[in-house]
């Protein structure tokens, strides 16, 4: 399957935020400096964290009950960019919902910190993986902060992984 293009940086079109948008249209500072066609997203994609040291997904005895469960299990293959731990084991996946008829999947995802520098990368990886799952046509990733993520959400499996990586929790 041809990889999806994630980000292509190019001059921004004027945004229609409505006449009531304060400050809208007053300034075009720097817009001329965008380099047309520069595919910075592709560069980042090529270097993304498909980690060879990510442990395989758990050996589930039962097949997934539905598309949502299949999607959730697929996220065991998406790694945190900094450590060899899946987003599921890290406890960042709060909910996965799916509509088998339309192929729409919605993932509620939190992050360890509000200033997580990898938020974009992680969301791209989630979309990228789920769109490779048969029957998934659309993916929406929703960021949630409630309840706040804490280390208590890390699975036992994840704790073992982190300990082996030298992280004390």
């Amino acid at each position: 399957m041809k990889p999806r293009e994630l980000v292509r940086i190019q001059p921004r079109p004027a945004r229609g935020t409505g006449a009531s948008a304060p400050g809208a249209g007053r300034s075009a500072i720097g817009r001329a400096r965008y380099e047309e066609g520069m595919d910075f997203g592709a560069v980042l994609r090529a270097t993304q964290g498909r980690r060879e040291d990510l442990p395989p997904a758990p050996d589930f005895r039962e097949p997934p009950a539905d598309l949502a469960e299949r999607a959730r299990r697929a996220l065991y293959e998406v790694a945190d960019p900094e450590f060899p731990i899946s987003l599921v084991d890290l406890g960042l996946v709060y909910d996965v919902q799916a509509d088998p008829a339309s192929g729409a999947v919605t993932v509620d995802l939190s992050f360890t910190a509000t200033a997580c520098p990898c938020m974009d990368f992680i969301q791209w990886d989630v979309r990228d993986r789920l769109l490779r799952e048969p029957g998934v046509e659309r993916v929406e990733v929703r960021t949630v902060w409630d309840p706040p993520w804490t280390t208590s959400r890390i699975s036992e499996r994840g704790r073992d992984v982190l300990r082996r990586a030298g992280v004390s929790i």
Partner: protein
Amino acid sequence: MSDVDTAARAFKAAEDLPGAVREPMGELLLVLADNKRLLGMRYSDWILGAPALEAGIACSAMAQDEWGHGRIVYAMLRDFGYDPHHLEHERDASEYRSSELLDRPAEGWPDLLALNLLLDTALSVQFEAMAESSFEPVHYKVQKLLDEERFHFEHARGWTARLATTPQGRRSLERAFAPAWRACLRWFGPSDDPVDAALEGAGIIDAGPDLLRARWLSRVGPVVSGAGLELAEETGVGWTTHVDATWDDDWKPGWRRSAEADGPDEDTLRRVRGDKNRPLLMD
């Protein structure tokens, strides 16, 4: 979620807010986002050059936190008719609603501690007033933010106590804290601000300016008094919530800053907008 909780979150989205509070709420969020963004900048000024390596690292972490908080709040403003990209990257200095305390770099470490203890806590007190907000999008974000802010306060408290162990250190703190103290008290706005009253009436915030000042004092007061700092000579009123200011001619309601200040200086503006790396910006 209980029925009570559901009922308390009356407003699921910005469009659900009553007309009288929708614009003020957007303005309050913009004030908070700008303060977070600029405060992060001021922390970042000290990543190198702090009194200790650990303090520089703490400044790095606090800067990151503040930018994360700013990013969240700027993103919320889309639902209020603002363009977050424009807000973050394209405004002129006169359009920033951050405290005038942040317009220029902190001159010394005591000045940075004044921002760390006094202004950062003021922002947290304002966010805390929205922890049980009837405006759901805010309610579901505030606790995570406050959890992260606890470490900022501990950093400020520890360094204030440490610097105050010598007479010279206490004097440097008093000189730095006095103007910041006055500015932070004023930052909450006039006691009878009708906008705050409307927000409080709608359950979006749980307290008006005077109560927020009192909450702020209850946090920072023990730190400054415990450190043996004296403010009375500077202001004549001591470490109280008395606002030594007028509101009519030098205050921009909805901006929470002095009408006479120009805004962030040129270097601050260039950095805070990310001018240097603009070609690499991504959505």
